């Protein structure tokens, strides 16, 4: 039974992922056109010349909760938006699944958690998520002003849901974002993302 499940899973996975190819660090980041929680449409081209950070989220995922109850995520959002970096929080959960929210709920979550993203993008069709091959929440990307992808991967190095681990971890995203701001090459441009699966 185990085997049959595996084989069918593999067969299925083969057909699905044959289409989706992961974006490459150093190459142009995939474009997107997505509506935010205020009804405004955003494309990557709108942010030309600015650094962009993408954060995939699902407010009920314990790995996301870890970074919000500890104020780690809000702190990163504030730091980078103050440094003229665009921070886009992306929700790719399909309607009816965990993490899916209405625009009002999204704004409420931003307010109640004192979050500071530039915009919350509602990608309920999962188009943007698939284009970026986003796998988990939180999955993080940094895009340079020239539109090239400079970082993709985890928010930090310890893949647990325990907020106490945050200070002990290597802050991959923060380091990558700061290196981009300083005009330096990113020292760890690809790290393993961890968290809950995105509910496509």
């Amino acid at each position, binding site marked *: 039974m*185990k085997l049959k499940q595996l084989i069918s*899973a593999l067969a299925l996975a083969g057909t*699905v992922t044959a289409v989706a190819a992961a974006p490459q660090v150093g190459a142009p980041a995939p474009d997107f056109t997505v509506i935010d929680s205020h009804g405004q449409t955003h494309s990557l081209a709108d942010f030309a010349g600015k650094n962009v950070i993408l954060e995939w989220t699902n407010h009920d995922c314990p790995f996301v909760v870890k970074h919000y109850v500890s104020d780690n995520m809000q702190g990163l959002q504030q730091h980078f938006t103050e440094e003229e970096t665009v921070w886009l929080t992306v929700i790719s959960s399909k309607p009816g699944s*965990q993490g899916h929210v209405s625009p009002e709920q999204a704004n409420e979550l931003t307010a109640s958690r004192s979050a500071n993203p530039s915009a919350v993008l509602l990608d309920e069709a999962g188009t943007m998520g698939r284009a970026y*091959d986003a796998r988990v929440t939180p999955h993080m990307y940094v895009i340079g002003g020239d539109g090239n992808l400079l970082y993709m991967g985890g928010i930090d190095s310890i893949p647990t849901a325990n907020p106490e681990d945050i200070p002990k971890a290597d802050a991959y995203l923060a380091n990558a974002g700061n290196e981009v701001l300083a005009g330096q090459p990113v020292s760890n441009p690809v790290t393993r993302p*961890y968290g809950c699966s995105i509910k496509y």
Partner: protein
Amino acid sequence: MVFHCIFLVQKRALLCNRIYHLTIQLIFYKSGRSQVVSLDPPPMAWRTLDQCINNYLAIMKLRHYLCAWLLLLLTVPAHAVTTGFKQAPHIQVELVSQYQSVSPGQSFLVALHLLPQEHWHTYWLNPGDSGMPTSIQWQLPDGVEVSGIQWPTPEAFSIPPLMNYGFEGSTVLLSEVQVPADYSGTSLLLKANASWLVCEEICIPGDMTLELPLAVARQAVPSEPFQALIAQGKASQPVSLQRTASYQVQDGVFSAVIESKDDLLVDAFFVAATDLVEHARAQEISWQDGSLLLRQPQNTYFHQAPDQIEMVLISGSQSFVVQAQRMDAGSAATVTAEFGLGAFMLALLLAAGGGLILNLMPCVFPVLSLKAISLANNSGDSARQKRDAWSYTLGVLAMFALLALVLIGLRAAGAAVGWGFQLQNPWLVGGLAYLFFALGLSLSGLVQFGSRLMQLGSGLGQQQGAKGSFFTGVLAVIVASPCTAPFMGAALGYAVTQSAPVALLVFLALGFGMALPFLLLAYSRRMARLLPKPGAWMDTLKQWLAYPLYLTTVWLLWVLGRQAGVDAQALVLVGLVCLAAALWLFGRHQLGLGFRLAPQLSWALALLALLLLVVLQPQQGSQSSSTQAHWEPWSPARLAELTTEQQPVLVNMTADWCITCLVNERVALNTDSSRQALQDYGVTYLKGDWTLRDADISIYLQSYQRDGVPLYVLYWPGKEPLVLPQILTPNTLRDQLAQLAATSSDG
């Protein structure tokens, strides 16, 4: 609330009228969700068994509401064998011991038993694309040790586009606890902090501290009711397979090769490292010539390939686990070993020590003694003695510096052609076997090497003056060389992996160690008296030292046998016999024995030995000759010629150390179907071998934006060159050719 319960009570308890220490766990079924309520002390525990049974029968009447399992159990109050199930969101957790009382010095199993709700799962060591492995932090009394989790064989959970690995249903995670022999306590508290992630579509993290006190007694007592659970835990683990296995992550592909003579049928595999394979992508499994070949695309987030990984292989209802070693791509990577100051100082010290020991070698010792005697004779002039000693030291150091520079030069030249001073070349290995065997025979006394040089050295050593001393040093190194090979070998082994200055310093330390006794003699008279007298013991020591050399020869022959096959090995063995005969004849000639033509015959035999080595045909070579009809060597000129002639061409760039390349060739290129396809479409198959980093091939690879192999390019007249994927399937070539032929005939 209506519920329905079953009591499973040990036989012993059934015989009693009263149930005293009964802990009952009832499972209430309500709206399909289970919940354990622990009643301790349960109200029913004080009833008689009859009452309990009556109660049970009454409840049975209400059976159409719900059904239930479960259990159990009755124990000694102070020490338990299970913590009992504790409820956490969507999962129940218990800690169970294999023994209810354990004895000092014993090792036993402890199970973390996870029972997730139906359709929920926890995660394996490698959780896949998301998730988190279950972990246990133990707090144990001093001296008590515990192993890591012995993971059961995982299941694959596909959540497109992701893949996870984990466990559904009753999951038993065993760890082995070792009680020290001098454990003095009367009880042993197992305290485990377990944390997990339990998921269906959504995920809930959980953690719990479980405490299980066990009795410690002289006689260990197994916990009978849980033997089945422990057995379940053991049975769910993969069986360890002792197989040679290696893996590689290269050019976007994870490949593993597992020696498998018995055609183990593998349906799927799991890699116990998070970022090696792209978990959701299709796996390719094939068997060829006694090896199992496993491939899967490389993980997008691949970061580092560990030295060793664990792989679980699924074969029908069975599963196996093997350890695979990382195979390095090319030799260049192994040459640049890490430089550590500690290792460097140690190497210098060892080299100096080795140099000191060189003085005891029969080739060197006579020189040393002569010098010592001459020093003792010149008792008056201590300033001159010191000057002589330093001159000698300088001579030795100069010679070692020269040796080091030759070595560094050779290495630089070798690196330029991609030869990393490794025993990859069967001719080199055979040559080394000859060398070590000959040196061994020389130490055994069959023949004297360098005796003329030694005499010369002694002659110069008797000369007076700084110049004489300097050359004594130089010659001492030369005459010592037959005896020093084993010591030099170790220093050489370290030095070739290091930078040039480090290698030079190591050799200088060796030289300094060799010259040290002379310096000491010059500065201290007493030392001269402490020197042992030359004598028969030196010869005995020399003869003993032959045996390590013979063993080295055996090892080299083994390496050769592995590389080039048993035929080549036999050839080299015949060569060794010729060499032995040659040296024997030469040795007799040295002693003035033997017939007139003995030296000539001796040379002839030595030449024959070398000739045998030269004609050596490694098995790989003979294999390639059998496929000669199928491909020809690639060269830029040949490719240009064929393309200008409007011929279809297949170019395959490969290397012996590239597993992916070899797998592709076995699976997709050297098959009958592909040979036929090449023939049908009139394709010339050109193969370029990049094993030694051919410069022309490097340029060709760069023209396709590649910096590594494999690369497959199909040239079809009138079309752009087509680059084939790095993983070839048996049909890739035929399909591509059919497509090219069809489109070109359309146009």
